[in-house]
């Protein structure tokens, strides 16, 4: 049950409501490899915090299981998302230096509460 909720929440984070149809794909792929972990359990209970946990683990806990699960959801999203051109620089060139700075700063700002949360998980 927990795994299914994780799949729903992680896929929804990247794909919105479109993610629901790929829950079984995630579960098939993740089944032999993943187990429960406190960060994922927290994210399932409080999905509002998934974004700050994503940023926090990116900066402070790159190898944690939560990030590995999120990475799988990312890989699935890259394959199935309706607007695939956002992963293709030739079709849709990136935003340039201002865009890189904006998204990096945004991520670092989110990593601050994320990092604090991780201290308790």
């Amino acid at each position, binding site marked *: 049950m927990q795994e299914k909720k994780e799949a729903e929440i992680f896929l929804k*984070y*990247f794909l919105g409501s479109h993610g629901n149809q790929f829950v079984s*794909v995630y579960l*098939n*792929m993740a089944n032999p*490899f993943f187990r429960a972990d406190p960060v994922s359990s927290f994210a399932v209970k409080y999905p509002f915090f998934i*974004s700050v946990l*994503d*940023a926090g683990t*990116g*900066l402070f806990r*790159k190898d944690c299981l939560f*990030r*590995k699960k*999120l*990475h*799988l959801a*990312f*890989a*699935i999203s*890259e*394959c*199935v998302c309706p607007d*695939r*051109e*956002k*992963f*293709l*620089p*030739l*079709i*849709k*060139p*990136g*935003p*340039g*230096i201002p*865009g*890189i700075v904006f*998204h*990096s700063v*945004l*991520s670092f700002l*989110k*990593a601050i509460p994320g990092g604090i949360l991780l201290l308790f998980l």
Partner: protein
Amino acid sequence: MIENIETDILIVGSGCTGVIAAMSLAGSGKRVMLLDPGVGPENAPRFPEEGTFEKIRLSEADQLKLFLGNNGSFFFQESLGTGAQFTSSRKFISEKTDELIPYRSKNFSPMESLATGGLGEGWGLGCCIFSDAEIQACGIIPDGFKEHYQWVADRIGISGAKDDAEPFTASALDNIMPAFPTDATNSRLLASYNLRKEKLNRNGFFLGRPSLALTTEKFNNRGPYTGRDLDFYLNENQSAWRPSVEIPRLVSEKNIIHKRGLLVKYFHESESGVEVFARDIKNNTAVSVSCQRLILATGPLGNARIVAATLAPDKEIDFPMLCNPYYYLSFLNMGRLGKSPGEVKTGLAQLSLFHDQSATEPDIAMASIYSYNSLMFYRVVKELPLAMKNSIPVLRSLLPAMSIAGVHLPADNSIGGTMKVRGSLSESPTVEYNYPLNSLIKQNHLLRIKKFRKAISSLGVWPLGISDPGMGSSIHYAGTLPMGKTEKYLGIDRSGKLAGSNRVFVADGSGFNYLPAKGITFTLMAWARKVALNV
């Protein structure tokens, strides 16, 4: 009940060296058999015959199967650290190795293959020529060796350029096709090098186009490379030379027998011939092959397993082992940030940077420079210190501006890498690798890597980082059966013959006493040709 097969010459291993040995023996009037465990790409996802990477990404319905493999199995395999070139389509190359040739190690992760074509199916296609000093350090007599390079080049088809890298690459040979153009990011690097090359050359650095086993013009039955940016997924027009390109031709036109599905365990040599004992990997039955001459071409690690089980079953043998240290450097070309990657896109090496720090010693190091093409974002997103969701626009800007240098360093016996094998006639051998790098050696490696970083940075790009994928990741191994002027137990002589044997030859890098940093595959193929002529 043992099935028995007979042939005149048996070649064990159908990778680049095994196939070149077979090509050399075709037409000799002898019955030649090429034998391998036969794992194949039958279950690999099939890519469309038309369209570029972008077009396929936009239009194909089943992207999950294409890029993550059946049931997504590939996602987890690659997470374990295999190279970028091993994609869902190439997963078969390392399939079944965990099960059939297991090993233990705390500090070494080798990659082996049980596939038809072996590791050659994922080869980066780089063709380098070793200097006489390097050839000699390997243990080979340099006189006449260049003829073998040319023989191989004439058959596999090589493209390259006459530039500063020429002395190190196969571009110095005859009949070389023009190189495929570089993309916008690497063209800037090359232009920048041409402006600053005097200083770089003084410091021993030489940059140029790599020579690749890639046809850029029509060549025999193969077509030219078109640059659809699908290099890691399919081999369009068979423009990349791989064993799988050659084997069907050997079978249909040269009467070579290709026997798949057998994993060789050991052999027994007598006055009348050699009997090779193998196991059918599908139904686990025993098979024996009788031959007059045996050529081992399973790679240095595979050969050590076979030789251990043959010469000293149930005893432990320490084989020496060489492996090139390997590091990645990444760079950002600020002028290309946020720009479109441009129409020329290729996942193959676009530039080669050689560092010849002492013109008299065979200690050249080499970097192959790539762009991040035909690969998905998910493969790099986990490396960024950012939220994955925020990484998407960042990567879209960064990747077209990024160059990645894979740096190989030379390896000799000073490190003391070993492969401990307890061979067995009935069971799988137990294998333990040990490749200890003390802090001084590691420090020396990093010093050299930093020289590369400084040299590439001087071309107007920003260094991003150095990453160490660990020992074994170079996939270049050698030296388990060292070559000597005289016969030495557990070694080979300069004709490739196994010590103590009259009928068994070794056609791969098992005998090399030194592992230059330049891509080794082309030299291994030239060596396989030389050995085949001695058989």
